[in-house]
């Protein structure tokens, strides 16, 4: 039982629109194609044994240093602006 659950690349926030012309291709890219970043990587963590918030954690994949943690809701609202 861990406090946090790791979910992967934060690019999952940018879900394509279902009624786009190329939706199938866009969804395929959205779900399967990932950048393999050496350096700062934004990723999703779920605070399961806590306040149940989804977090965007910025982690350096070279040394696991974490430099930023944001609420996913805030980040998504920012994307929409």
């Amino acid at each position: 039982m861990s406090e946090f659950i790791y979910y992967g690349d934060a690019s999952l926030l940018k879900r394509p629109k279902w009624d786009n012309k190329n939706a199938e291709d866009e969804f395929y890219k959205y779900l399967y194609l990932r950048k393999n970043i050496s350096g700062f990587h934004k990723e999703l963590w779920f605070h399961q044994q806590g306040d149940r918030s989804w977090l965007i954690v910025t982690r350096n994949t070279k040394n696991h240093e974490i430099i930023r943690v944001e609420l996913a809701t805030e980040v998504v609202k920012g994307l929409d602006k």
Partner: protein
Amino acid sequence: MSNINRIKSSLIDTTKEINFVFNGKKYKGFEGDTLGSALLANDVKLIGRSFKYHRPRGIVSHGSEEPNGLVEIINDHYNEPNTKITTVELYEGLKAKSQNCWPSVKYDLMSINDKLSNFISAGFYYKTFMWPSSFWEKIYEPLIRKAAGLGSLSLSNFSRNSEKGFLHCDVLIIGSGPAGLVSAYIAGLSGVRVILVEEDFIYGGSLNNEVFHISDMPAQNWVKSILKNLDKLSNVRLMKKTTVTGMFDHGIFGAIEKNKHKKIEQIFWKINTKKTLLCSGSTERIIPFQNNDIPGIMLSGSIRSYVNRWGINNLQKVLLFTNNDDAYLTAKNLIENGINCIGIVDTRNSSKKTDYKLKIYKDSQVINAFGKLNLKGVNIINKEGKITYLECDYLGVSGGWNPNIHISCHTGVKPEWNQEILAFTPGLNNISTHIEAAGSASGKFTLNACFADAESKITNILNELKVKPKKYVIPKFNRDKYNIDPFWYVEHGSQRKWVDFQNDVTIKDIEIAYDENFRSVEHLKRYTTLGMGTDQGKTSNVTGLAILAKLSKKLIPEVGTTVFRPPYIPLSLDAVVGQHIGKNLKPIRLTPTHNWAKANGASFTESGLWLRAEWYSKKSEKKWRESVDREVISVRNSVGFCDVSTLGKIDIQGRDAQDFINKIYSNRFAKLPIGKVRYGLMLREDGIVMDDGTTARMSENHFIMTTTTINAESVYRHLEFCHQCLWPKMDVRLISTTDAWAQIAIAGPNSRKVISKILDKEFDISNEKFPFMSCKELTICGGITARLFRISFSGELAYELSLPTQYASSFVSYLMKVGKEENIIPYGTEALGVMRIEKGHAAGAELNGTISALNLNMEKLVSPQKDSIGMILSKREGLCLPNGLRLIGLKPINPKNQLISGSHLFNENENRIPENDLGYVTSSCYSPTLKSFIALAFLKNGTRRYGQKINVSNPILKNETMAEICNPIFVDPNGDKLRV
């Protein structure tokens, strides 16, 4: 025995005798001894046999660097193999035995390997056991398994009392030698939270090996005085018998505390710290020469330690062999204690001046050692090539010192080469990290430099923590400068020269590896197994690199080094596991009616974390099937109830709740009327079925979703993801209410009659007022709030009643009373499962993470008219093959033939090979309703093959059955019974 005669040492209490047994023979030691020191004091030099060649081996060192002194500790319930005798604190009644020898350590039959050494050098396994490949499993592997491996397991399932613990501090100091003590004291005085960890069972580190004075007192007294002060500081935690095993990200360290005599024998600590100072000291190196593995050949500093700390004086003639200054201190201490030091063989030209009488063989080397089970003498050679035989029973070797940098490498930091001390130091200078090294761990080999280094490093750390360092006057100490010559191994002679004792790696093995082009350090390590033993090559690695450097005509830093990985010392799995074993591995969740069920004959089954009643046995019932069959028939004929509280319940509220649910489920959910329930299919974004369940609309903006038991957590997480990460602007709030509401399924043609008796009067649940798929909040038993859902998993007229958890247990007792007339019975998960298979409902076995809506014959439940998770990708070709797998029913031609879950389906006339595989059985049971075994299965193109026969084949269980393909809904396919 000479055991009684010990030199006086403040660290050995000769008034307290301790009895122990080694290889069946009784010995005595004293309080303060290790098993190693006690054996040496008893003249036991031969400890075990080596791993590969079964050469006789004795103690080399005095700490966790020990490569040879591995024994099995014999306990009442289990044996602990590969225990380093140099780290075991002696205790009354200790029993130990040698490893890698048969029938005994003195006459070991496997020592024939030693004679065959020409055939089993580096890469032996890779070369020898290559062909024919059919020999591998039957002949080679059992042979290797028998001969290989260190020690043996007792195969007992006894588990020691182990715990896991968590600690937090500002500064973690690893090691309590001179650097560790000084820095812990300065940090402690300055007020930060300090943890000082010491591997040994006493504090003091290398100071315990010495007899010199610090601040006008013996070194051990100085240690005691500073410890006394540290003890007074409440912000300092002292932890001895504790070894830091690994450094992990973000300042987290693992440490193992071992305490044989405490109720909890070992504690695996997870230490969170802001800063760390590595004061782990240094380890002496060997110098390889011919036969340098004979018992009696030890590290020079370790001989000094056995004399000074443990007071051992049964050494007759000691010779020393060195390329540096440190061995001279050993010589001095031996002479001061009246031990016959016959001389020092120094590879250097400029021999040192000494103020004591010592024969120095300058410009000389030890070239060969003699003796079988213990050392008899050595040959030395001087500059002119003259060979002299010297008789001796102990030889102390010093090839220089390696800082114990291991922990500093654990996060991937490469060490740096220091040409002055000819060793690697932690490569921490140019990178920002939370760990620093001080003292001899950072290459400061003289005591003055060590103290000064500790003071400056801890001051830096305190500054970084924004704490003002308190002043502490560090002791001044006069000790010779440390000087070393780059002398790595003796070239003279062609017999074997041992580099890694534990893995039996010789210089020749390194040469073979080099000749065969295994020239990178990583290849060399794996091809020869150099440094891969439980000692991690603490005494041998750098020597091995030096030999490789010489062969490749490079400098050592150019050759590079392998980095160290955790754990620093061997860590037993039971320590890491702690109490999380067996039933303690995971929490157990009990249903609200658990105790009632237990009292009423239920047996239980695990379902995720839950324990659920599987059936309720009556005394007359001998087999479980009798109980299950009775339960099914009772429900289908009258009425029964089942605790289904384990299903996930998610409360969804908000103005956008309906739109939100409509995006979660793939089927249409937009216009669910208030007071109605609907089945929902949930896909993952990749189009695979994630879960299914029902959702009820209690009011305009209030919905209750149910999930399967197993997916309760993951569905909730998924919903939060969809809300927070995809549609945060939607006005929705989610909460899991699985634990708050008990849910009881009441099923059977008489269920309405029974429920009517418990409802408060004003509620009417007649078929007209409360038809199939209705829901309502109401009160029962005189005012208790409850929620009633008219839904059915069994296919009968059925309801599910939610009520606050605390009432569940008394409610079911009451239900038994009011349903007496209808012969109401409780039923378990097995009967529940039988009835759902009879009805063709998919459950966990079908929703296996590879199944699409089409496979479940539910393709119409994926609406292309709206946005829902997984809709787009569910349209992918592979998930919609017209001839793809379909959920079907199977009835054996002979109803008594069981269909086994996991069996595969083949056309009768085709071979049972993967190419002809048409599908597989997911769920099977005996149906008392149909009086036949039945099963659910996925079959290619299955819905078009109803009525055909197919072979159900299980080659593992050697079972083949013919079955008829049919509609998966075996009972009441039109659902008439649901709607009465």
